[in-house]
């Protein structure tokens, strides 16, 4: 030991959450015997105001320089306690948390064993904190411009929200006009507002807003930089290269309809009167529902879940097709009062405001709802014989009656699934967001942080994150806008300080770290022949540090010494703990 460390340890009961399975009093007593531990206490709720004041008081009275709290997950309260340390005049990084709730009391059933494990975890934290160092916060300035990728309803909404507040927007659209899929929609469920009446005024506002610069026929290749200071080069339709600088990115690149040609049962592409929901939407928009032969269909069948909720295609629910199908039935019933309408469905999912009511109203409009087995027995469509007096026959076992039936149809509308854009991977790579298995973008936290991503300054909204209806897309867009305006308002953003640093004296210039960094935060300095970490981009994941063959890269707050002593603390039983 070079110098004396003065550690305070606090064991939380979390009411009964921890205390019922862990003998917290015993843990505090045993840990109190460890070297460098000046004080060890147990308390009912450490995160409460009196709990935090207890720590602050002890730091001052006992001259503590490090604090260990053993309570819940650091994801929940690490920041709370760091702030308490700061209030007491300590560096917030002189703090360590041992999780004895999620990792102990909630998952174990033997009180003795659980208490032993809690002691080990706290001992590990005590061992680790001995080697903690003070780290200083760093901030960077924010460029107040924002780039939005995608000019659909989500991108437009975000652009207006930020643009109207007087901030610059670069709105990038790959097609030759704004509006996205909504531009192809006739009426919207469940209140039957016209999509044009929703969309057109918004597009007008975008084009009239001097703060919003729209680039049509434009794709994004690569985005450089970090939160507050991004830059990219784009080549709009006119072929002239433009360089853009911005502080935040909103990805609103949307999704695309599934191509049902891959489902043999439905004969899409072979039977001319089998059409997709988008094609039918076009018919509605034109105001003319006719078969390929130009006749008014006497029987229209709508098949749900085409490409959704089936392990052979997409396993997820595409979320808007049920309501769109019900909307189709309503519009069909108004346009063709005598036509037989068949809704062939797997389950009707009519969640959301006004939607269940819409379903109930629709079901009273003389529409036949027929249920099929989406998992194992998809309907089969075949060309009908002349005597059948219809164009096609749809054959399946109807689940609610148990009967094998044949549904006559002159037109079949396939409610196709919604899937990620073809270039979803390229955009993800360009801006540094992650994708889940089905290529939709992953948000930072599915519940607590639904529009941010793990890359600071990059937000995902609307259909590119998962299939969504209009209100949900707009809500996300405006949420991202609010987040961005907040950072612009502060003008600066705090960046992670637990980053990697290169010891230039030891670095051999092998560039292994450059290749493994998932955040492209490491570059190579040709002149000096060493790697250089861009500390703004670095997330402190530690991949470089563990790959570096010479040990030249050191991850702040996750140094080898800190980790190894933590492991030692974990492996030794708390009572026989040896000094490191």
């Amino acid at each position, binding site marked *: 030991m070079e110098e004396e460390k003065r550690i305070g340890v606090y064991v939380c009961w979390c009411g009964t959450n921890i205390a019922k399975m862990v003998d917290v009093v015993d843990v505090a007593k045993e840990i109190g015997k460890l070297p460098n531990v000046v004080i060890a206490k147990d308390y009912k709720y450490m995160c409460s105001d009196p709990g935090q004041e207890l720590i602050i008081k002890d730091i001052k009275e006992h001259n503590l320089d490090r604090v260990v709290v053993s309570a819940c997950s650091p994801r929940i309260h690490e920041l709370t306690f760091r702030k308490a340390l700061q209030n007491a005049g300590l560096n917030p990084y002189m703090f360590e948390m041992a999780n004895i709730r999620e990792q102990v009391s909630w998952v174990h059933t033997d009180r003795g064993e659980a208490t032993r494990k809690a002691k080990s975890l706290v001992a590990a934290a005590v061992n680790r904190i001995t080697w903690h160092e003070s780290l200083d916060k760093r901030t960077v300035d924010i460029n107040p411009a924002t780039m939005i990728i995608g000019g659909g309803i989500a991108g437009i909404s975000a652009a207006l929200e930020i643009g109207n507040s007087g901030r610059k927007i670069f709105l990038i659209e790959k097609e030759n006009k704004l509006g996205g899929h909504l531009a192809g929609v006739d009426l919207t469920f469940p209140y039957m507002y016209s999509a044009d009446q929703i969309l057109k005024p918004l597009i007008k506002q975008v084009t009239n807003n001097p703060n919003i610069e729209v680039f049509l026929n434009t794709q994004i290749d690569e985005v450089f930089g970090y939160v507050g200071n991004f830059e990219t080069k784009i080549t709009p339709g006119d072929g002239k290269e433009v360089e853009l600088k911005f502080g935040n990115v909103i990805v609103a690149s949307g999704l695309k309809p599934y191509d049902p040609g891959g489902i043999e049962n439905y004969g899409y592409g072979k039977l001319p009167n089998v059409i997709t929901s988008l094609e039918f939407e076009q018919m509605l928009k034109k105001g003319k529902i006719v078969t390929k032969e130009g006749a008014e269909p006497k029987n229209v069948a709508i098949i749900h879940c085409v490409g959704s909720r089936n392990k052979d295609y997409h396993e997820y629910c595409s979320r808007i097709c049920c309501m769109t199908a019900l909307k189709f039935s309503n519009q069909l019933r108004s346009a063709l009062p005598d036509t037989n309408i068949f809704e062939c469905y797997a389950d*009707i999912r009519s969640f959301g405001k006004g939607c269940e009511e819409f379903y109930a109203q629709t*079901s*009273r409009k*003389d529409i036949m*709802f027929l*249920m099929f087995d989406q998992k194992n027995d998809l309907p089969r469509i075949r060309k009908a014989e002349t005597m059948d007096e219809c164009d096609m026959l749809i054959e399946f076992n109807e689940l609610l*009656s148990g009967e094998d039936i044949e549904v006559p149809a002159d037109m079949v509308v396939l409610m196709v699934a919604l899937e990620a854009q073809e270039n979803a991977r390229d955009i993800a790579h360009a801006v540094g967001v992650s994708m889940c298995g089905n290529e939709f973008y992953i948000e930072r936290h599915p519940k607590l942080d639904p529009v941010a991503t793990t890359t600071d300054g990059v937000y995902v909204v609307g259909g590119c994150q998962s299939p969504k209806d209009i209100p949900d897309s707009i809500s996300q867009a405006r949420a991202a806008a609010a987040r961005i305006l907040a950072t612009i308002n502060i003008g600066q953003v705090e960046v992670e300080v637990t980053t990697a640093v290169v010891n230039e004296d030891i670095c051999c210039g092998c560039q292994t770290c450059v290749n493994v960094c998932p955040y492209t935060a490491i570059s190579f300095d040709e002149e000096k022949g060493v790697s250089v970490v861009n500390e703004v981009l670095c997330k402190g994941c530690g991949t470089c540090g563990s790959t570096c063959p010479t040990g030249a890269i050191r991850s702040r707050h996750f140094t080898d010494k800190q980790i190894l002593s933590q492991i030692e603390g974990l492996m030794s039983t708390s009572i026989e703990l040896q000094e490191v």
Partner: protein
Amino acid sequence: MKEMSQYGMGTWNACFHCGNCTAVCSLTEEGILFPRKEIRALQMGLEDKLATSVEPWLCYYCGDCTETCPRDANPGELMMSVRRWLTAKYDWTGLAGLFYKSLSALIIAFVLVAIGIVAMGFVKDFNSEAVMYFGHILEFYLILTVFTIILIPNILRMFYFTVIKAKVNAPFGSYIAAIGNLITHMFTQVKTLKCDKQTVRWLEHFLLVMGYLGLLVITVFLDWFGTENQIIIYMGYITGGLVFVFTFLLMISRLSKARELNKYSQPTDWFFIIWLFLMGFTAFLVRLFIDIDLLNDHFWIYMVHLIVVSQWGMLLVPFGKWTHFLYRSFAVSFANLKKAALIKKLATAA
């Protein structure tokens, strides 16, 4: 489906098959499922399936299903409508269907019968003895004719639909047992008691049936209007009274709509109750007028009674709601055959 809406309310489209109705029903059981199954057959237009099902007759319309329905699809009233449709389906003459669907046809038939009776009275010079003699004979033959020509063939048709066409393969012994519960159910309707909170309703119905059957026997077979036997005369007053008191109560509850089953009334329901009431009431008055020597001066009261009885016997009994008396009782038997067949089938399978 469109046809069915002429027999009652057309709200079953609203059903999305949650199954609450079947779950809450006290009478439905394994193999004999209702009302969801019937609603599905109806929505899909599976006419054969509906025509061969005996289940609608097993429902006594307690209204629990309608109260539980989250979609206000009114399954209870649907079962009632299906029973009307089945009544028409079983009737080989087609008149039952006509009268259910067309109120004007029913009224014309009523008027024709009334004219016939008045004409007969005119022919006989409104001589009280001659007319009453004729009336008594008419009642007697009417019962005989309606049974042999209409009701028995219709019951056979019901048997054909629900047992033969439905391919119910019941063991022979169960047929004998079925006759036993036929008699029980025809005169007691005890199955109603299996429904929740239906004891009062059952008692009302039971007393009304007893009153009606009693009045029938006393007037037709014991010649209430001609007899001197004091016991028969008093029995007649009691039974006639029962009929009009309880029909009066039924009318009040239909009007107040307090019970689920009374919320919706088809015109034929009203005809049935009002005519039953009038029959009891006029019979009561006729005998009263005889006893206080007013009948000769007020012979019109007998004419009214005879018109009511003839309309009842010629129209409402063979083609209307009255038939539920038979169909329900037979349905219990046929359902037992179905259950026996199911048990046999399961046994063979095992």
